[in-house]
């Protein structure tokens, strides 16, 4: 009986070699490989997922950056207050309603200004505005209704807790209403305005909800747009835009570095008209690649009466 090649190689000082498989075993493996195509689709035959249809955002520079907003996908727009995100949202709604499509805005904090929407060009007859309300609990706890005007005074611990519960019930409303809108189909755009929801509360929306929304909007012509302070949908969003704040077109400097003295020299027109808004593309999970660099900026304009 001959020794195995391993031991003979080791004994002779030659490099260690693994034993070659027997010829019968090799043929068995080749036969198994031939049967594989029936069960496993080869990579060359995999179905090519078509790129989603893109719709214009109503802002030329933004369309150049991302190609627009994708249908059947979740798009996030995040940014702090006074960054220009609401202007972007209204522009997208205006453009969608102009195309003859119906839009829905789920307003978590009831912050929409109809006059601003009309000035942006939104056809209000085609915009379904859902005004979510806070839970108001008189004496102890009561049914959902809009809260009265806040009075002057310090918030007690109980009020803070009630405030937090209020945000949670608002978010429940937002999730339920969004589910209903996605199931009804036929909307060109469904926008969720979570811009005033505290980040801590917004992050409590379970990721499963976002996944459910993404699955519901897939293969539909609906654009699902979410406005928020910070990204909260995780990997469920296909496009993530960060609105990075504004600067004056006159001085070209960002507001955060302006001295109070320099700021006082700006006129109202200079501050609000030709307002430059910066947008950074953080994520684009589509088949197509970004057209240009990941940042862009555009100018807004003020709507003047008369």
């Amino acid at each position, binding site marked *: 009986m001959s020794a195995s090649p391993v031991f003979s190689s080791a004994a002779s000082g030659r490099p260690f070699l693994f034993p070659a498989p027997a010829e019968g075993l090799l043929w068995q493996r080749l036969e198994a490989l031939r049967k594989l195509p029936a069960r496993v689709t080869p990579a060359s035959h995999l179905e090519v997922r078509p790129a989603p249809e893109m719709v214009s955002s109503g802002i030329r520079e933004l369309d150049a950056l991302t190609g627009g907003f994708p249908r059947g996908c979740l798009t996030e727009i995040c940014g702090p207050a006074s960054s220009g995100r609401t202007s972007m949202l209204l522009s997208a709604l205006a453009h969608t309603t102009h195309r003859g499509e119906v839009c829905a805005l789920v307003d978590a904090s009831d912050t929409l200004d109809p006059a*601003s929407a009309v000035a942006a060009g939104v056809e209000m007859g085609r915009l379904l505005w859902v005004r979510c309300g806070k839970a108001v609990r008189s004496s102890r706890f009561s049914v959902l209704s809009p809260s009265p005007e806040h009075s002057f005074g310090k918030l007690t611990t109980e009020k803070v807790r009630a405030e937090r519960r209020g945000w949670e019930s608002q978010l429940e409303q937002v999730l339920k209403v969004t589910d209903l809108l996605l199931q009804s189909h036929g909307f060109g755009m469904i926008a969720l305005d979570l811009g005033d929801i505290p980040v801590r509360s917004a992050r409590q929306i379970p990721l499963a909800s976002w996944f459910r929304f993404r699955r519901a909007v897939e293969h539909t012509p609906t654009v699902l747009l979410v406005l928020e302070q910070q990204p909260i949908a995780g990997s469920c969003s296909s496009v993530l835009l960060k609105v990075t704040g504004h600067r004056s077109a006159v001085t070209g400097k960002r507001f955060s570095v*302006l001295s*109070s003295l320099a700021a006082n020299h700006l006129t109202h027109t200079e501050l609000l008209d030709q307002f430059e808004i910066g947008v950074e593309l953080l994520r684009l999970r589509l088949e197509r690649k970004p057209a240009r660099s990941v940042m862009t900026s555009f100018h807004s304009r003020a709507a003047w009466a008369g």
Partner: protein
Amino acid sequence: MFACLHISDFPVEAIIRCEPELRGRAVAVLIGKSPLEKVMALNEKARQIGVEIGATKAQLEAWEELILRTRSEAQENSAHAALLDCAQSFSPEVEDTALGTVLLNLAGLEPLLGPLQKIAQDLAQRALRMDLEANVAVATNPDAALLAAHGFGGVTLIPEGHEAERFGELPVDVLLQCFSSGTDEARWLETFDRWGIRNLRALAGLPEIPLCERLGQQGLHLQKLARGAATRDLQLFESPLIFEEDIELEYPIMLLEPLAFLLNRMLEQVCARLGARARAAQELKLELELVKSAEDCDPDQSTTFTRTLRLPVPMLDAKVLLKLLQLDLQAHPPGAPILKIHLAAEPARPRSTQNGLFLPVFPEPEKLELTLARITGIVGEGRAGAAELLGTHREGAFQMQPFAPVVPEEKTSARRKKDIAVQVEDDGPNRIAESAQEKMTAVIALRLFRPRLRAVVNVQDGKPVKLKCLVRKEIAGEIVWTAGPWRSSGDWSEQEGWSREEWDIALQAESEMVLYRLVEDKLSRDWWVEGVYD
């Protein structure tokens, strides 16, 4: 040729229409005040077990299997209206002969609806779909059809010339029930009984002149009817487009679930009647008569709970209408047990939409209406819809309108070219480019705080310099930039006059500058942070 639809034991059939589970059981309908109620109508099953017309309630206790119900005129009217709708869905010439009996002219319908036998069977089927078991008879003249429907059950077709032969075996009282009133019927019956006339063959065989001498022209007319030879024109019925259904309950119902069960049945009948008249429902009105509470001072005053559903488009789907009613009643419950239900539908022409390949995506009106009803149940009444700005200078004046988007029309290429040509002519090419360019930019938007936030403001030289909002701690600090004020006031002639000064201010936040709209109410001297520019 003429057809007659006749419902035997009509008061009983009207009750069974609302309670289908009673079909196949012995049912008697009572009339009169307690404890003197008497049987005024009963079905065949009740006759078989020995119940008779005129029996008192006490006498009926012997039959345990007998179901007793009080006569309901509302249900009889609904049933008769359904019968008329059924007839009018076949022929435009209909005569409203009596309660539970209608006649229709079938002239010219054979090429459209098929042979007469088929038309008769379709009539019976259509009536059955409306929960009405009707006898259908077709004959060459209206009275012959009427007599055949009263005398024979099911579907009967009497060919021309065979009327006397077919009517021969019918008893005389069938003829008298059809064509004479109460007292005359008893008189004729007595006379024919004395003469030994038991059936219509015997009456038809009497000599005409002696009959006329003894009974006059009326007797002669009865003989003609017995032979099936009397002719007349139909007195055409012009029905108003009223689609109502009523149910009176034996016991009050307190839960929404059994109410939904009854509403489902009523809606199916209303929709069937609407469909038979090529109509759809534009508005639904629901009236519920409620049990009076013990605190009610006036016992004669009825307690009626009314809900009106105005639909954005005419609808004919009973399931969708039921769901809308359920959602509405969940949001606005009646608050007391229900004794009577009245449902009325306002008819309208059904909508006709032409689909196109290039139309933008649009929600289905029925689905959208259901979705809106569900959303209203979540966020509350008046908080979901389309905002409409009011024509006033008051800031933030708007009202919520029901959301009813109009389906956009598909423009043909020729029409599109025409529109562009007109636009170029009116506006000029520069204006178009400018407006197109304008449309590709954003307009600075304001986010409002609802409710607006009370603030404490330090003013220096007439300008706000420091702001503190205790509700939102982040809105506080030195004001680094201001613009304004913009003064406005209005509604002085009304009690709700207003006067305000608006300032646009900038506050330094953690890492960015935030722009707010600050408002001073000149009447109350309070300061409010109204919104943030974003």
